[in-house]
C-alpha cells in the first residue's frame, strides 16, 4: 500500500498527556512509523482520523466523550487499531472486534515494537465490522447499553438509551427515533434489541422495538392487531406476539 521509505501514519489517542508523550517517545525509535496527530478524547480521535487518514490508531479505552470501543465502531475499517489501557478486562473483547493488539499499561518499547510488527502484517486488511460483536464488546457483561453512538453523515450522535422512543428495522439498517428526529445505524434490529435493557425496550413487532415508557395507550387496529399510541401521538404497530411481550413488560 504505502511505498518503501515512507513511514506509516499513526494517530495517538489518549486523554492523559504523559501517556501521549510516552507513545511519542517510543515511536521516535520506530523508523517505519510516524505520528501525524494526537487526540485527547474519542470525538477528537474521529475528527482527526478523518482529517489525517492514519494507517494505525494507538487507542486508549477509557476516555471522555467516546470510549475506545465506540471510536473503533465508527472508524473506517481499513484503519488498524492497537488498544492501550491499564485495564485487562477488555482484552478478550478487543480481539473480538479485531483489534491488532492490546497493550497493558505500563508497557515497554519492545512490547510496542512487537505490536507494530503485527500491525504491519495486518495493514490493508479490512476489519470486518460485525455490529453485534461491537455492541457486545462495548458493554460490560451483565449490563446493558446506556447510550448509542451513531454516525449521521458528518455528525456523530451520542444518544442516551432513555432518549430513544422506538426503532424500526429495515434489512441491515435500523432507524432509531429519538429526540424528535431519526437516525440510521448499520446493524440489525435483533442486535440492537440484545444490547438494550429488555425491561425498557420491547420487540412489539417483527420490525419494531419500542421504549415502553413512551406508550400512552393501546388501541385495536383491525384483524386482531393493535397499535401503540405514544405520548407524542405517533403510532407503532403491535403484532399479536408483540402484544403479549408488551403486556408482560408493562405488568398487565
Amino acid at each position: 500500500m504505502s511505498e518503501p521509505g515512507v513511514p506509516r501514519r499513526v494517530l495517538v489517542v489518549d486523554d492523559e498527556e504523559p501517556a501521549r508523550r510516552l507513545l511519542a517517545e517510543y515511536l521516535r525509535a520506530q523508523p517505519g512509523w510516524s505520528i501525524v496527530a494526537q487526540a485527547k478524547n474519542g470525538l477528537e480521535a474521529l475528527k482527526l482520523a478523518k482529517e489525517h487518514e492514519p494507517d494505525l490508531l494507538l487507542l486508549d479505552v477509557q476516555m471522555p466523550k467516546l470510549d475506545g470501543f465506540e471510536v473503533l465502531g465508527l472508524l473506517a475499517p481499513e484503519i488498524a487499531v492497537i488498544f492501550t489501557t491499564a485495564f485487562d478486562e477488555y482484552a478478550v473483547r478487543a480481539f473480538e472486534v479485531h483489534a491488532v493488539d492490546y497493550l497493558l499499561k505500563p508497557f515497554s518499547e519492545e512490547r510496542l515494537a512487537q505490536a507494530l510488527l503485527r500491525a504491519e502484517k495486518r495493514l490493508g486488511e479490512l476489519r470486518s465490522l460485525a455490529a453485534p460483536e461491537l455492541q457486545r464488546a462495548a458493554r460490560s457483561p451483565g449490563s446493558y447499553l446506556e447510550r448509542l453512538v451513531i454516525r449521521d453523515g458528518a455528525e456523530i450522535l451520542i444518544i442516551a438509551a432513555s432518549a430513544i422512543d422506538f426503532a424500526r428495522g429495515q434489512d441491515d439498517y435500523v432507524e432509531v427515533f429519538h429526540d424528535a428526529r431519526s437516525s440510521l445505524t448499520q446493524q440489525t434490529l435483533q442486535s440492537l434489541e440484545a444490547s438494550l435493557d429488555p425491561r425498557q425496550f420491547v420487540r412489539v413487532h417483527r420490525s419494531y422495538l419500542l421504549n415502553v415508557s413512551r406508550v400512552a395507550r393501546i388501541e385495536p387496529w383491525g384483524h386482531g392487531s393493535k397499535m401503540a399510541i405514544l405520548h407524542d401521538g405517533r403510532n407503532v404497530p403491535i403484532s399479536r406476539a408483540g402484544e403479549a411481550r408488551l403486556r408482560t413488560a408493562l405488568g398487565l
Partner: protein
Amino acid sequence: MHPLLAQRRSLSAYLLFWAGLSAVPWVLLHSTAALGALVLSAACTVAFAIGTLPVWYLCRALPLLPAKLWRVVSIHAAAAALWSIGFLVCAQLLAELLALLPAWHALPADVGAAEGPLLGVGALFYLLVATFHYVLAELEQRRLAGEREAVLALAAQRAELSALRAQVHPHFLFNSLNTVSALIGYDPAKAREACLLLAQYLRGTLGAQERALVPLREEWSLCQGYLAVEALRLGERLRVEVSMEEAAEDCEIPSLLLQPLVENAVTHGIAPVDEPEPLRVRARCRGGRLSVELENGLDPAPRRRVGGLGLANVRARLFGQYGNDATLRVERGVDRFVVVLDLPASSPRSLEAR
C-alpha cells in the same frame, strides 16, 4: 419497651415468683380468715409486681454511678415510700371488699393491725424490684453491646477488604506507574517526585488501616496525597476546591472514610469528562455535628450507570461506628453528584473536656 413485656414467658415466670412471695404478707397478717388473707396477699403482691414494672425506666434513667449515688438512693427511697403506701392502700381497699363475705369480715381489722409491717414489706419488695431491674438493665446492655460489636466487626472487616481493594487499587497503580514510566523520558525530576508521592500515599493508607478514628485533617491529608498522584496524569483537568473550618479539621472520623469517596469523584466525575467541574470539598462543624460534603460533576451521557458499592461500604462503616447517629446522603443530578456525610462531632480535645 420493657424487656419482660416483650417475652410472655419471662413475664409469667416473673409474676409466678411474686405470687410465691405473697406468703410474706400472708404470714404477717396472721388472720383468722386464713383463706381470705391468702387471696388478699396474693392479689396485692401480684398487683404490686405489675404496678412496679415502670421502675425499669427509672432504673435506666438512674444508672448506678458512684458520683451520683446520693441522688440515686434518695430518688429510689422516695419511690419506695410511694409504692409501699400504694401497697398498703391496695391491701386496705381489697380488705374492705373481701369483708363483704361474712366469713372474712375480720380482714380490715387484721390489715389495720399489721399496717407497719405491711409498709415495711412494701419497701422491701420495692428494693427487690429495683435490684432486679438493675440486673436486667445490665444484661440488656451487654446483649445490645454484643450485637453492636458484631455489626461493627462485620463492617470493619468489609471496610478492610474494600480499603485493600480501593487504596491499592490495581488500576490506580498501573496508571500511576505508566505516568512514572512516561515522565522518566521527559522530566526525570518529576518522575522521582511522582515515586515519592506514590510511596508516601501508599504508606499513609497502610498506617491508616491500623487506626479506627483519625482527625479529619489527617484523613484529608491522605486524600490530598491520592489527588497529587492522580494530578500527575490528569493534569489541569483535576481541580480541587477545599473549604474546611478549623474546628471541623479537629473532629475525628473513621479512617479511610473519605478516601473512597474522593476516588469515586475522580473516577466518575473527573477522568471520564473532557472539561470537568472541580471537585469541591466542604467541612464544617455546627451544633455538635460534623458535616462533610463532596461535590463533583458527572459525565452527562455515561456509557454505563455507576454502581453504589463504594457508598454501601461507607454507610456500613458509619453505622458500625455511630449506629443511627450518622448519615450519608446522596444527591444525584444529571451532571452533578453530591455526597453529604453528617456525623457527631467529636475531637480528642472535646472528649477530654467531658
